[in-house]
């Protein structure tokens, strides 16, 4: 078991998301930074999609009630096991009773806002409709369908096996360092134009691609509300409700874009300017509130290539961990 010691809200149990339930109105949920979740699981010899804790608010503390291998990925949050400083993106061992502290993310080598606590075996919460991710709106999945609270105890599949086949003492280079993407020094994500793209004014489109967009405080797992130039359609656009996915950039009548994130509802009705490509959603998921982001126009081929790069990062992570453990 691991026991949550912090009162800090908004930490949730996530895996790589719930697929196949859109037909019932159920969105995907899942880790805001799927590469960090998968990376942590690879370090521990887990299935890539094993459930972990996503931590967006710090400080955060847990106690291990039994010996446990674990890894903290995503943001570099000055992790300590009792008083011992820990390397980020590294497999460690805890003994029963030890406390893991996660502090404020350091914005040094890479900027990030969410940490993932992965444990060997994965968190053993029940899978609901094929996933262990928390569905906050539907109040199911994850731990009792809600964000974690102080005193919650989460079981670990296989009882936190230590050492042995899994081993510890090895790490990964975070994708933010090995696959950086910036424009004029501002973190960037690639976007494929969507159905209503050509219905926006030329000035709006020019501003969309050329200006930095601020991630406002009204941003969360449901969506990132951005502020910047006012984006306007050439004429009113009449929309019918239709399916959307995380990454879709909707522009309501106020002219300020909203990027749908992992907890977004699966249907929308606002004009869509574009979609942040799947391969870059982790970058946005890690962008801190108050920071800026730039958009890069991508072609289909470029988006497919970006996805290949992300897959290759995962392949390489698997290979490196195998090498380090053998």
């Amino acid at each position, binding site marked *: 078991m691991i026991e949550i010691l912090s009162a800090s809200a908004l930490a949730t149990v996530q895996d790589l998301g719930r*697929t196949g339930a859109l037909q019932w109105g159920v969105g995907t949920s899942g880790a805001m930074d799927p590469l960090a979740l998968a990376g942590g699981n690879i370090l521990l010899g887990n299935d890539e999609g094993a459930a972990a804790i996503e931590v967006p608010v710090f400080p955060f503390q847990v106690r291990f009630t039994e010996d446990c291998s674990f890894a903290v990925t995503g943001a570099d949050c000055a992790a300590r096991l009792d008083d011992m400083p820990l390397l980020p993106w590294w497999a460690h061992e805890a003994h029963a009773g030890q406390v893991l502290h996660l502090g404020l993310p350091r914005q040094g080598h890479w900027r990030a806002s969410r940490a993932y606590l992965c444990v060997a075996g994965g968190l053993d919460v029940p899978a609901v409709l094929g996933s262990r991710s928390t569905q906050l709106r539907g109040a199911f999945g994850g731990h009792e369908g809600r964000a974690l609270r102080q005193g919650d105890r989460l079981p670990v599949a296989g009882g936190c096996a230590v050492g042995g086949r899994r081993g510890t003492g090895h790490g990964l280079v975070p994708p933010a360092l090995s696959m950086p993407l910036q424009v004029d020094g501002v973190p960037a994500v690639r976007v494929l134009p969507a159905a209503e793209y050509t219905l926006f004014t030329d000035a709006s489109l020019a501003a969309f691609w050329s200006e930095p967009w601020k991630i406002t405080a009204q941003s969360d797992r449901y969506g990132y509300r951005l502020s910047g130039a006012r984006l306007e359609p050439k004429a009113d656009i009449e929309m019918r409700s239709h399916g959307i996915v995380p990454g879709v950039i909707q522009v309501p009548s106020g002219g300020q874009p909203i990027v749908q994130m992992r907890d977004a509802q699966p249907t929308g009705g606002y004009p869509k300017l574009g979609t942040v490509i799947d391969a870059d959603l982790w970058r946005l998921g890690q962008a801190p509130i108050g920071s800026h982001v730039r958009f890069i126009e991508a072609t289909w081929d470029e988006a497919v290539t970006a*996805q290949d790069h992300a897959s290759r990062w995962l392949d390489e992570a698997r290979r490196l961990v195998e090498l380090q453990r053998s």
Partner: protein
Amino acid sequence: MTADTPSFSVLGTSALLFEAPGSTELKTQQRIWALAAEVGAWPEVREAVPGMNNLMLSLAHTPRHLGDIEARLRSAWADIHALPLQGRLVELPVVYGGAAGPHMADVVGHTGLTVDEIVERHSSPLYPVYALGSHPGYCYLGGMDPRIATPRRRVPVLSIPGGAVSIGGSQTGVSASDGPSGWNTIGSTAMCFFDPKRHPPALLQPGDTIRFLVEKVIR
């Protein structure tokens, strides 16, 4: 979009959107259901999800080239026949007005009708379930009397309760769980629309029909 030909677009690399031309009609929706049944079986499609006269394809893997799947989709649409699903009729008892219908006065104000006239027009039709979406168990319905259409609220309500019966523009719907909404709530029903332990988890599916029964009117 209401162009003459269907529109095909991408939602990033994980989904495609197909939109039927013309005004929103049940006949078109029946073709959308038929298209969903056909393309949902394609190996690259994880899920074919109907919207209002449109269809989103959630992709199991990203195709290298888009041309092929677009051509197959357009050709399937051209050949498809309406699939008039014979679903269930589900009756929902509704308490109209009062504390559970806080925006009834706004619908009265906009339409110029009395509460009784609004209730009569809202509870008369049979509403076909076009699609599910928005949140677990929520249904998009067709068939509302255009005389009670009322624009969405300028400022969305932070949370309306599950079971809230509301009007947004020319559509009506019932919230399946608590959450934010820009629609005008005119009543409430006690029905449970979603239970992840049930199979299927959603009470309703496309092709089913809803009738609102007047349980009580609070004027």
